[in-house]
């Protein structure tokens, strides 16, 4: 059993708020940013969801059974909340899946500069929600394929496919705007 799962189980047994604080401090920033990116949310929107996620952590203590790691369970809740936020919002224009330009040239080597970071963010927002979630969990959280599959409740092959198509579409979209 990993450390954080052990801490959460102990929190469930004792109700000691210091244990909750340990988990909260460990995950709050990561969960907040994960939800912001998956759901294309503003900071206040993501904070509302963060509050809901950690209220669930408080309420479910004592009921948690370690079938999955605490972090997997936490990210599953966060990802589902972000998906719901996307669905509750008006539909945005999705990236054209048939847009690939095989002959586009010029490496996208300036994406880390301030202005282009905003472009990456916009491109990410235009991906479908599952590709976006897989990319965020992989690139930002450095989750393994199997962890992403557990969080998103799909197969490892599906995760690989989501990552591949997500990256390819993001590249196409960025190329269209940077060339």
């Amino acid at each position, binding site marked *: 059993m990993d450390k954080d799962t052990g801490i959460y189980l102990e929190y*469930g047994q004792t*109700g*000691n*708020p210091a244990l*909750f*604080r340990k988990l*909260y401090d460990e995950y*709050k*920033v990561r969960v*907040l*940013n994960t939800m*912001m*990116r998956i759901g294309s949310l503003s*900071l206040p929107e*993501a*904070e509302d969801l*963060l*509050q809901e996620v*950690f*209220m669930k952590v*408080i*309420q*479910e*203590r*004592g*009921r948690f059974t370690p079938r999955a790691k605490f972090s997997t369970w936490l990210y599953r809740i966060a990802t589902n909340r972000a998906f719901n936020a996307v669905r509750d919002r008006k539909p945005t224009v999705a990236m054209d899946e048939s847009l690939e330009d*095989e*002959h*586009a*040239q*010029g*490496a*996208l*080597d*300036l*994406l*880390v500069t301030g202005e*282009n*970071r905003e472009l*990456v*963010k916009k491109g*990410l927002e235009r991906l479908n929600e599952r590709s976006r979630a897989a*990319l965020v969990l*992989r*690139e*930002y959280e450095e989750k393994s*394929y199997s962890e992403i599959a557990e969080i998103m409740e799909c197969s490892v092959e599906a995760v*690989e496919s989501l*990552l*591949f198509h997500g*990256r*390819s579409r*993001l*590249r196409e979209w*960025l*190329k269209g705007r940077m060339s």
Partner: protein
Amino acid sequence: MMHEDFRKMVSRRLDRALEAKDKAVLEAHLAACPECRVYAADMESVKKGLTALPEERPSVAIDRFLLEKAQTTEGQRPASILDRLLGALPALRPSLAYAAAAMVIGAFAGGLGFKLSNPTHRQAVVPFISEEEARLFDADYPGSIAEALGEVRKEKL
């Protein structure tokens, strides 16, 4: 193998999930295919771009709210399903209280109405004077008890 197969390998290599034998196959293809080479370079940039996104932090108010919630639930049992249902419907709580109060009042009024409309209950609830008292009263005030009561009122006035 098609270009797309190699590009899938590029994606797996970015995730450090490409097996060694596939890595050699991919590198051989990239050396020979300029399009896939550009694709691989772009993918590296996309990855860098994604990981360089700025990070936000939750406000102190959110921290405080959650840490207080964790504090107030210390030593208490975890919320039951009913607690959570009520917690999810805070706006309905006052109306639930009003409904409960209305039910209690309704039950009381219904029970009283039943007793008053049922003679056996009326005898049990409303105390009447005994036959002996009525006879004595009638001796002092000839006529009906109702008339006698009228006499008593007149005397007091």
